């Protein structure tokens, strides 16, 4: 992990290219986080990739309810030669959650981005195949959001199949 100073230096260098790209930095428990603007996340990821963070270890969504903007997308980047990790975090609102896709930089982001879309409803613009991945294709709602209730999921049996899938109660 870069230490707190290293993180500030990285943030400073990226800000020199585009002053609005990095909104804040967070450093806690030895974990370095760059909070980026949603529109410029590809530039930030690209700049970090040039600095050696060439491996996208994980991409996942978070719902920060009741904070605003609610949704977060986290990119866990890894520098394999320096064994160094850095996290890029962006925040988007639930009204129109649009984020440019990272599949151009990291082809392995395809499945994780589909999962974030499936679970949180974040639309990744330019994604080659943005469909639900874990939930059924006709599922309504985004189940990992904090205001999505648990339980009441209809189970399809032969006796209620005629009523239509997902139209229970």
């Amino acid at each position, binding site marked *: 992990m870069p230490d707190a100073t290293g993180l500030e230096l990285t943030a400073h260098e990226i800000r020199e290219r585009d002053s609005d790209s990095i909104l804040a930095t967070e450093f806690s428990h030895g974990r370095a986080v760059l909070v980026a603007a949603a529109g410029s996340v590809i530039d930030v990821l690209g700049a970090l990739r040039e600095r050696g963070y060439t491996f996208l270890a994980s991409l996942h969504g978070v719902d920060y309810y009741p904070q605003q903007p609610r949704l977060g997308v986290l990119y866990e980047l890894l520098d394999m030669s320096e064994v160094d990790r850095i996290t890029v975090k962006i925040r988007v609102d639930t009204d129109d959650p649009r984020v440019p896709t990272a599949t151009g930089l990291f082809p*392995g982001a395809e499945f994780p981005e589909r999962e974030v879309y499936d679970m949180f409803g974040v639309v990744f613009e330019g994604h080659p195949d943005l469909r639900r991945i874990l939930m059924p294709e006709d599922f309504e709602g985004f189940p*990992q959001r904090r205001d*999505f209730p648990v339980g009441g999921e209809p189970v399809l049996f032969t006796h209620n199949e005629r009523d239509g899938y997902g139209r229970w109660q």
Partner: protein
Amino acid sequence: MSSLDTSSYRRREESITYSAESAGMGETHELLTLNIGPHHPATHGVLRLLATLEGEVVRDIKPIIGYVHTGIEKTAEQKAYWKVVPVIERMDYLAYYFNSMAYCGAVETLLELEVPERAQYLRVIHLELNRIMSHLVWLGTSALDLGAISMFWYCFRERESILDMFEMSSGQRMHTRYFQVGGVMEDIPPGFAAKLRRFCAEMPTRADQYADLLEKNQIVLERLRGTCALDQETLLKIGVTGPLLRAAGNPWDLRKAHPYSCYDRFDFKIPVGTVGDNYDRYRVRHAEIYESVKIIQQALDGLPDGPHITPNRKVSLPPRHELATSMEALIHHFKLVTEGFRVPAGEAYYPIEGPRGELGCFVRADGSSKPARVHMRDPSFVNLQALAPMVRGSYIADLIATLAMLDPVLGGIDR
């Protein structure tokens, strides 16, 4: 079957074309879309593949997943931190110790909790036993896919003895809930060490026997050697880690690169392949069994004395006998069992080297006694994306072998 027609779900299913399509290949050639799975013994779980075939050659393949999605990440948000461990273990059902290790590690990072030495050694022993167990299931079922049914029985025989040891230490054979936040549930019982030593002495000779059976078999060699290779640059772009990446010659292993728990104290090697074909994938996993045995032996020899779980009573349950004599212990017990412990607000990502690659657990705490978000970066989920580039242009028989060597666990993919 008229009732099926009314369901919109069924209508969507029917919209997938299975028919032979002409694809500008003249009157004598056409592409065939073949559905494989979700219920098929060679898919290692409930995986569905839509393969586009030109004769016997795979032109494209689309994995369709989600059939065993159980919403464990959502369930985890409804439970106190220590009650999450049993559900999270059920994600990748062949790597349950790894799942709980990644989760406990993330929570311990947020709590800034020190794990006692003995607990770390006990964790390493169980993690490596679990790695051997997972590789044995992989080897047995993969050999089965290649037509070697006897390997299945031999591998499951050794797996049984590992499960017996899990039963000895925790009472359960699978999904043991042995790892707790702050340490392990209880110390190993008398007789466990002797049994483990017997196992460690026997396992390498068993692994030799597997190699004798498989590596002198012309059918196995011809089906594995030189098939469906993928270079490490492509693998890294896709995000593949673990034995698949090491088979392509990249010695990336988090146990060495970024040692967690107490892996920096053991002497072991990282097996790597050369070209990254199916044979290398087999050889790397097979060689890892020997290295895991070496780690277990060293951990057992150097097992330090001390507590098996943190003495911090705000996190770990007090010993049973204290409840009868200490009021304070009773209060701690009550608080832990009813509410659980609270974790200060923050986020942590804890990556470990699972049997299939980087297994990272992300936990967000909001200050309450339940996690606000748990996400598992499961290696099978990411590695599955490499299937299409691996098999494009090879025969459909090689697709089955490659899928076996990919070692996907659908419980981990769908979570």
